[in-house]
C-alpha cells in the first residue's frame, strides 16, 4: 500500500474510475446502447429495440458471422499446427539457427496487415498460383497474420515445460514419436488451447489484410461492420460489433476455463 490516508486513497481511486470509465467502460457501454437504439438524436436514444439483432440472424449479417467463424477456425487450426510444429522443430536445431529462425517466424506480426494483403494480391493473382478472388486468399492472409502469435504462445509454453518428464520418458526407452505424442503434447495442451483461442479472437477482428483481399461473397464481420457504418447504418454496425465482441469473449473465456481446469488437474 503506497497511500495510507483514506481521503488520499479515495482521490486516487476516483482518478482511476475516471480513466477506466472514459477509456474502457464508456466505449463498450455506448456500443451496447447504440446496438439497441431505434433512434438517437439527443443525449440518449429515444427508444430501444432489438430489431438490429433480429436482422443479424437473418440475411447478409448472418453470412458475415459465418464467414468470420469459418475463416477464424480454419486459419487458427492451420496456424496451430504449423506454429506447434515450428516451435517443436526449433528445439532440435542448434542455438544460433534456432534464434534466427525464431525471429523469422515472429516477423509476420511486425509487418502492417495491409502490406500482407498487398503482397498476397501481388503474388497470387496469376496462374499457377491463382488465389486472388477465392476464399482461400482470405484464409491465407489470416493464417500469415496469426501464425506468429500461435508460434509465440507455443514456444513460451515449451520454454516453461519442465524437462524432467521428457527426460524420464526417454530414459525409460520411449522413442521420440511416442514421447512427443504421449508426453510433450499433453503437457503443452493448455498452451495450445490458449494459442488457438487468442488466434481465433485475432482472426475474428482482422480488418487490414481482409479488406485488401476478400472476394465478393466472403465478407467477414469487420468488413461488413465497416461497410454498414460507412453507409451510415451505424446502429446495425453496432449490433454486429456486439456480436463480434460476444463471440470473442466467449472464445477467450471458454478456452480459459478449459485451460484452467487442465492446469489444475
Amino acid at each position, binding site marked *: 500500500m503506497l497511500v495510507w490516508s483514506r481521503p488520499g486513497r479515495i482521490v486516487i*481511486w476516483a482518478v482511476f474510475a475516471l480513466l477506466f470509465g472514459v477509456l474502457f467502460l464508456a466505449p463498450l457501454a455506448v456500443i451496447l446502447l447504440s446496438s439497441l437504439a431505434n433512434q438517437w438524436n439527443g443525449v440518449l436514444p429515444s427508444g430501444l429495440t432489438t430489431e438490429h439483432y433480429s436482422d443479424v440472424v437473418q440475411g447478409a449479417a448472418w453470412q458475415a458471422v459465418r464467414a468470420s467463424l469459418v475463416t477464424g477456425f480454419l486459419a487458427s487450426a492451420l496456424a496451430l499446427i504449423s506454429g506447434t510444429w515450428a516451435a517443436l522443430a526449433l528445439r532440435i536445431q542448434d542455438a544460433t539457427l534456432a534464434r534466427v529462425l525464431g525471429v*523469422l517466424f515472429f516477423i509476420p506480426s511486425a509487418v502492417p496487415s*495491409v502490406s500482407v494483403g498487398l503482397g498476397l494480391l501481388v503474388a497470387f493473382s496469376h496462374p499457377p498460383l491463382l488465389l486472388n478472388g477465392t476464399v482461400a486468399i482470405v484464409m491465407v492472409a489470416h493464417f500469415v497474420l496469426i501464425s506468429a502469435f500461435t508460434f509465440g504462445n507455443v514456444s513460451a509454453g515449451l520454454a516453461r515445460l519442465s524437462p524432467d518428464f521428457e527426460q524420464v520418458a526417454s530414459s525409460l526407452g520411449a522413442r521420440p514419436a511416442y514421447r512427443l505424442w504421449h508426453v510433450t503434447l499433453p503437457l503443452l495442451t493448455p498452451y495450445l488451447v490458449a494459442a488457438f483461442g487468442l488466434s481465433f479472437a485475432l482472426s475474428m477482428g482482422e480488418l487490414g489484410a481482409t479488406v485488401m483481399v476478400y472476394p465478393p461473397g466472403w465478407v467477414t464481420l469487420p468488413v461488413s461492420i465497416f461497410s454498414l457504418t460507412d453507409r451510415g447504418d451505424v446502429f446495425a454496425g453496432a449490433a454486429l460489433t456486439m456480436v463480434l465482441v460476444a463471440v470473442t469473449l466467449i472464445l477467450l473465456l471458454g478456452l480459459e476455463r478449459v485451460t484452467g481446469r487442465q492446469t489444475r488437474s
Partner: protein
Amino acid sequence: MADAAVLPATSAVRRVPGRFWIVPPAALLALLFFYPLVLIVQQAFTDDSGMANVAEFVRVLHARFFLNALLNTITISVAATAGCLIVGLVLGLILAFVPFPGSGVIARLIDTFIALPTFLVTLAFTFLYGSAGMLNAGLMEVLSLHAPPVDFLYSTWGVVLAEVTVYSPFVLRPLLAAFSLVDRGQIEAASVLGARPFRIVRQIILPAAVPALIAGGSLCLLLTVNEFGIVLFIGAKGVITLPLLIYSKAIQESAYQVACIIAVINIALSLGLFGLYRFAAGRLGA
C-alpha cells in the same frame, strides 16, 4: 538449453535427421509470407517494361501525399505511445500499489481489450464524441448552442485518443508484471521513514519499471505505426497514414506500384521498430 538436457548423449547421431523437421513450416511461411514480401520489393523497383528502375520510387518519396502520410503516421504514433505510457503507468501504479476491492478483475478486464478489434473504439467514439454524439448533444442542450462544440474526433487527435485506449493495455501488461516483483517491504520501510508517495514512486518503483516501459512503449510504437482499422473507421479526409495510403492506392486507385513503394517504406519502418522492441524485450528478459 532445455533440449540439450532432454536429449541423451548418444543423440548426436539422431540430431541430424531431426533437423529437417523445421522445413515444412518454414517452407509454408516462406511461400505465403516472405515470397509475397520479396515481390512487393521487386515491384517497387521495376518499371512497366520490367526493367529495374528507381525513378518511380524517388518520385513517390518526394510526393506531397506520401510525405503527408509519413508525417501523420509518425506524429500519431509518437503521441499515442506517449499517451499509452502515461495512462498505462497511472493505471498500473494504482492497480499494483493502491489496490481496491475488485482491482484484480478490472486488470483482467483491461487485458481482454488486447483481443478486441481496434475499430470498436472508433465506432464508440463517434457515438460519444461525434458531431451528433452524446457529448455534443448534451453540451448543445445545456449551453443552448447551435453547432457542436467538440470537434476533435475527425482529426489527428481523435485517432490518437482511440489508439491510447486500444494500446495502453500493451503497456499495462508488462508493467504489472514488473510491479509484482517490487519489494513491498522496501516501500513500507521508505514510507515509515517518512518518504512521500511521490518520492517512493520516483526512487523505488520507477527504476524497476523502466525496462517494462521501454518494452511496452516500443511495442506501442510498432502497433500504432501499423494501425489501420482506427484510421479507416474515423475516415477523416485530412488524416491519412501509411497503411491507409497503401489501401487507397491499391484498392481504390489500382495503382499497385505506388502501393508497393509505400509498403516497402512502411515495412522498413515497422521492422526497425520490431528490432527495437526485440532488443528492449530481450533486455527485460521476456
